[in-house]
């Protein structure tokens, strides 16, 4: 069992937790993820390592409540435990030699992007961050990003905070203004990453994306997380989750992410009903 030592709600739909997992904390690197199961009948779901404390032996996760498992996880309180927590999985984000980087985060993807931004910033790399949310209520990690970047641009779809518009607008402006990024790192919904790539490709700015297909084992055993990258089959859990954005087949990935839509909807409704009954 893995104890939840700290829990904080970042907004109505996003929660942060620190989990006691010393072996994972010891090895974790930005860009890697864990797989957890909340309880005995639980599904295995991947979440990115949003931070770690090697001394305390804790690993931070930040998750958006989107369905049944994330809802169950969010029901757990500080001091309670979850059944399984395994990692660190995947290949760490490559940061060597980078001098100037633009990090583009969308929604909860910002949680995944933050440790990468922090590492680059600590290395002395110039970090420009563009983070986007649907509206002000969904904004997370503003202070953390401010601390980890040399320039921070916040975008909201409705203009309720920061500037109004999507993240690709300021990205394109920056590139056109002559910011010579060694790399753009985009982390967020598939559709956002697809558009980031469409923005950077004409300028030939190398763009790394963090893919999040449906996973089970996270060790290369099931092949469920397969993607087409540059015409080759890759397993996101071991070969990724970071890939060269220009080579990823996003349309295929988007189609595959909806395999279990009906099941998930049903399971979510069931979980919500269960919890609302408990409350009554």
């Amino acid at each position, binding site marked *: 069992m893995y104890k939840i030592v700290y829990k904080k709600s970042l907004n109505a739909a996003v929660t942060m937790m620190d989990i006691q997992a010393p072996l994972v904390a010891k090895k974790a690197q930005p860009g890697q993820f864990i797989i957890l199961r909340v309880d005995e009948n*639980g599904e*295995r779901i991947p979440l990115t390592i949003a931070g770690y404390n090697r001394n305390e032996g804790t690993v931070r996760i930040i998750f958006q409540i989107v369905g049944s498992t994330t809802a169950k996880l969010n029901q757990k309180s500080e001091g309670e435990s979850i*059944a*399984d*927590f*395994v990692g660190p999985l995947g290949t760490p984000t490559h940061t060597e030699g980078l001098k100037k980087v633009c990090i583009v985060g969308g929604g909860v993807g910002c949680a995944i992007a933050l440790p990468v931004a922090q590492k680059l910033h600590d290395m002395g790399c110039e970090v420009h961050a563009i983070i986007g949310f649907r509206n002000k209520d969904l904004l997370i990690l503003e202070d953390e990003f401010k601390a980890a970047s040399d320039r921070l641009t916040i975008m909201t779809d409705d203009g309720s905070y920061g500037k109004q518009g999507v993240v690709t607008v300021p990205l394109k402006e920056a590139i056109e203004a002559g910011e010579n990024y060694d790399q753009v790192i985009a982390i967020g919904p598939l559709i956002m990453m697809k558009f980031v790539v469409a923005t950077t490709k004409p300028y030939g700015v190398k763009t790394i994306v963090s893919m999040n297909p449906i996973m089970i084992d996270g060790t290369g*055993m099931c092949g*469920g997380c*397969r993607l087409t990258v540059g015409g080759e089959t890759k397993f996101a859990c071991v070969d990724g989750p970071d890939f060269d954005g220009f080579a990823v087949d996003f349309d295929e990935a988007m189609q595959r992410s909806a395999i279990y839509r009906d099941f998930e909807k049903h399971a979510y409704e069931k979980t919500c009903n269960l919890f609302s009954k408990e409350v009554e």
Partner: protein
Amino acid sequence: MAANMNPKKNPMPSQPPEVRAHNFQEVATGYTKDTAIDEAMRCLGCKHMPCVSGCPVNIHIPAFIAKIKEGEFEEAYQIIAQSSSLPAVCGRVCPQENQCEKHCVRGIKGEPVGIGRLERFVADWHNTYVQDPPMRPEPNGYKVAVIGAGPAGLACAGDLAKKGYQVTIFEALHTPGGVLVYGIPEFRLPKSIVRREVDALRALGGEIQTNVVVGKTITTDELLHEMGFDAVFIGSGAGLPRFMGIPGEFLKGVYSANEYLTRSNLMRAYQENSDTPIIRAKRVAVVGGGNVAMDAARTALRLGAEKVYIVYRRSMEELPARYEEVEHAMEEGVEMLLLTNPTEILGYNNPEDKRDPRNGFVTGLRCVKMELGEPDERGRRTPVEIPDSEITVDVDAVIMAIGTSPNPLIKNTTSGLEVNARGGIVVTEETGATSMERVYAGGDAVTGAATVILAMGAGKTAASAIDMYLQGLEK
């Protein structure tokens, strides 16, 4: 006692096909005491013991069968236990028809003795009636790490624990058992049997740490140099699935057998209360002809499929699956499309509406018919395509069961560990010793996908080599 000269084996009591095809309970229910004794009476107790030479771990077959004849089932069990760590498992899943039973004298005129069925009977009898005395051997001061809790790892850990070694198994998944829990379905191998083996290891003082991926969470080098283990055994299996590389493999409804079986077995997607989803397809094609393919096909039936095909490019004779499993599958209604090779998986695509939720789901499997050509160097006749023989089968799921290879994770993170061209760890066969000092390996991680008994045997071999090595150091 006169031998029972009936040319046929006592049939295995089983659930009727039309019933069992819709439930996950064990298909074969096992011999009764009387049937077991009757079957044992068919054994001639041959002095030259041809059956034993066919057994990969040389179980003393005529001796244990002789004990069954006398009704001394526990003694029969103890004889098997001298050579095998997992009798209840092997009695169920061993390909006896290619091993002990293939060499049985009774098989010359009629059917061989049902050695596997007798092994299973004896193991189940022991598990039901005998409480193993708690045994905690005196610790001998050595620590051994075992990577992977499949049959190879469990067997190695068990033998070492019995000798007083402090053994820790590191397992990547959340449940120990390897393929026995994530691959082979409940209806062929009840999970309670695997759990019992795991509990027995724990009772001996063996520790199992789940959720540890060696190569990620910790490395082999750390085990040896920082964590104080005197030796390491690698039994990490051959879990990396292969795909065919044909168009359409990314459609929704295409699974590797590993994924499909893992969802159903390990994650229990077949049960109502599991949170893990699985596509409940109505028409399913399983590509491949091994045990894995049969398990996937029969699982699909039990998950509610109305039509299940096995698509295999050679003929019935070359089918690598155990005969019994093929027979069971066919009785349950699985249709065999032999000499048939897939060329493309077809999917739904509504050109009018890109957001149509049906888009991207499997609708069919296009195949060509094959015929068998010249034998290759191993004597297997190579299938060749028959021109203009295309067929299309309507299906909504395709499961690829065309083989697996060793996962490169440990190799990639362990400097100095030698592997062969197929990714198998190179070992000295008699000992399981790898290219690294104090590191041993066995099972599918070495041989590629093989059998439970070979993996178990390799675990035992390495345990005794590790023991000799470490005891040798003392002198």
